[in-house]
């Protein structure tokens, strides 16, 4: 193996890439686009939930309660109803997520020291938003209840929960998604770009030229991989920089740990892409297989967005075979938890193993011989 031949292969690959504007868009624009989309436009965070109120009591007490809802940033009181029949229409049309119903005897029950009821009719079709909205409503009702029940007394409720959230204190989905994007974007680079590289040579007939040169298999694979490792690391860097600087995603760990583990993961992903490319020898087939084999699992089954622990057993076992699952532990650990090698030891070893396996697979599948 000589470095001269290796660099020649790498240079050729760079030249080819530069002539292909669509690949460059995928390599450089898509990661930025996705980061901005996830960082800015879309989130799971639920606030400004539209609610309507049917106040059948119209008393000072009921107004105070509604003020408490109004004061919270989670809800936006958008309609006051007069008639219970309106509830159904509003919820059916999806104009509000929740309707609070204050019954006519609300202040009377409160005044008599009995438990007053407050009803919340919730549009449950979006279970996640409904769940979160109900949680907020319950918290507001509870603090109101405590204020009334224990007003002026030194008595405290028997048990109270003190919740604290670590690592992602404001529970923003942005902090959850951006570290995971690093893994997903690498898989896109690997699946969409490298899966083409060897198939392209076969389709265009340039494989024969390559075969006629003295380069060895390792040199070809390594040389073709180098530019993509560069692109991948650049993407890691830009996604992290945008996430941290623009969107305030915390970065608590050490970049010195993120870089080598990302490189190992990248080599594994690229090797997998090249392996697929080498065995299919068709660009269309290679991208589609690579999508199904690398990108989709990284997106769906890695815990990037959806918790793997609640998936049904078969799917949940399958996730153990997805390298992105472990890499996600690494990126979230480094970004959010600020943990080091001691905690990420096993995942680190797995990344190195994945890198080695991907590289070996690519080298073994690559055949120079022309049949």
């Amino acid at each position, binding site marked *: 193996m000589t470095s001269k031949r290796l660099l020649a292969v790498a240079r050729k690959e760079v030249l080819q890439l530069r002539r292909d504007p669509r690949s460059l868009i995928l390599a450089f624009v898509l990661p930025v686009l996705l980061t901005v989309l996830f960082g800015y*436009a879309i989130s799971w965070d639920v606030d400004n939930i539209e609610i309507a109120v049917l106040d059948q009591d119209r008393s000072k007490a009921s107004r105070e309660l509604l003020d408490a809802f109004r004061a919270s940033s989670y809800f936006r009181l958008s309609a006051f109803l007069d008639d219970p029949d309106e509830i159904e229409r509003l919820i059916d049309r999806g104009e509000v997520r929740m309707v609070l119903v204050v019954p006519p005897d609300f202040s009377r029950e409160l005044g008599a020291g009995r438990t007053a009821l407050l009803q919340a009719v919730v549009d449950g079709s979006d*279970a996640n*938003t409904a769940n979160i909205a109900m949680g907020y*409503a319950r918290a507001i009702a509870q603090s109101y209840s405590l204020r009334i029940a224990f007003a002026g007394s030194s008595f405290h409720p028997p048990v109270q*929960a*003190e919740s*604290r959230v670590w690592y992602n204190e404001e529970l923003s989905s942005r902090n959850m998604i951006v570290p995971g994007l690093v893994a997903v974007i690498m898989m896109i680079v690997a699946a969409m770009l490298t899966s083409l590289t060897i198939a392209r040579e076969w389709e265009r007939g340039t494989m024969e030229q390559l075969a006629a040169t003295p380069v060895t298999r390792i040199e070809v694979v390594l040389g073709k991989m180098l530019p993509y490792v560069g692109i991948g690391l650049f993407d890691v860097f830009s996604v992290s920089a945008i996430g941290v600087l623009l969107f305030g995603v915390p970065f608590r760990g050490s970049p010195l740990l993120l870089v080598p583990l990302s490189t190992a993961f990248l080599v594994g992903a690229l090797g997998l892409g090249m392996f697929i490319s080498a065995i299919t020898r068709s660009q*269309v087939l290679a991208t589609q297989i690579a999508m199904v084999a690398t990108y989709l699992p990284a997106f769906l089954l890695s815990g990037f967005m*959806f*918790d793997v622990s609640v998936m049904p057993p078969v799917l949940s076992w399958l996730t153990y075979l997805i390298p992105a699952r472990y890499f996600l532990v690494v990126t979230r650990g480094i970004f959010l938890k600020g943990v080091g090698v001691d905690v990420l030891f096993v995942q680190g070893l797995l990344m190195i193993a994945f890198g080695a396996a991907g590289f070996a697979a690519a080298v073994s599948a690559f055949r120079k011989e022309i049949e």
Partner: protein
Amino acid sequence: MRGRAERVAAMVVKEFRQMFRDPRMARVIFVAPVIQLLVFGYAVSTDIANTATFLVDHDRTRASRELVDSFTASGYFRIVGRSDRPLDLVRALERGEAVVGLTIPVNFARDSTSSEGARVQILLDGTNSNTASIAKGYAERIVADFGRRLAPRGALALELRDRPWFNPNLESRDYNVPAVVGALIMLISLLLTSLAVVREREIGTLEQLKVSPLTAGELIAGKTIPFAVIALIDLAIVTAVALYWFEVPFRGRFFLLLVASALYILSALGVGLFISTISATQQEAFLASFLVFMPAILLSGFMFPVTSMPEVFQWATLLNPVRHYLEIVRAVFLKGAGFHALSRQFAALFVIGTSILLFAATRFRKS
């Protein structure tokens, strides 16, 4: 007029023959969506169950055990470890072995009967913001309910009764599976159309079609009708899987679903046709479809609610046919909504679908 219908019919027959000559194609068209729906349907879930919980019980009394029991009995939490040392709890959270840490202080039982009251600490790993916020809600509710049982009568001034409509068990699957159906239909019709046209260009048979007596309009109709038919068949298959395998309720009328899907498929065919005019190879068409599909899904309300987006993006999503279709599909499946409640979405789908298709057809004619 008769000649025109015959020419289009001949072309449709040719398209079907061409498509199914490759036996793999039938699998791609009819089996792949089912597998995708199964994987997506199970993977796309925001529910929590058996969340890994680490317990530090400094009190070790009957009361503290009862509190822990009410956590595990809820089904949302599962104790994966216990210790006396808070440091072990920190380590379990750091390593990701537990997502929730429950700490019960010394004298918990005694304080809960005193006027001071007792406090339990719930520590959450927020890295998965969704799991953490739902777990936080459940945990606080369990503690509050536990306190209520101990509370002296009258201490509870206000009780909130929530009644979730349409989906009383609050299963996210019921909400997500219909949306997955929508995403799959888009993917299939988008890819099939863009790839098929470009394939003809690649192998050079598009020229032959152009010198045939077919007009451009007939050519486009002949190219798109087969994919519309396939997309509708796929719709029937995946809807059946959603209803009978995932047991998602269907409260509306099938007719509405059919009309909405037909309008929706118009947009997908239009985008596919447009992509075919800007791509020289199937490879490029595939990448372009991917680049269109990703943002269309992310900005549709599929997984991320439209109402949580910044206002500019909320306006922008009005141009996204996926958004309108998902609103219709979810409302028809879960709410049993009628045409009246959904007229806006239907109108939007119609306008978007016909304009995209017309635009693409004009471009196609020129190329």
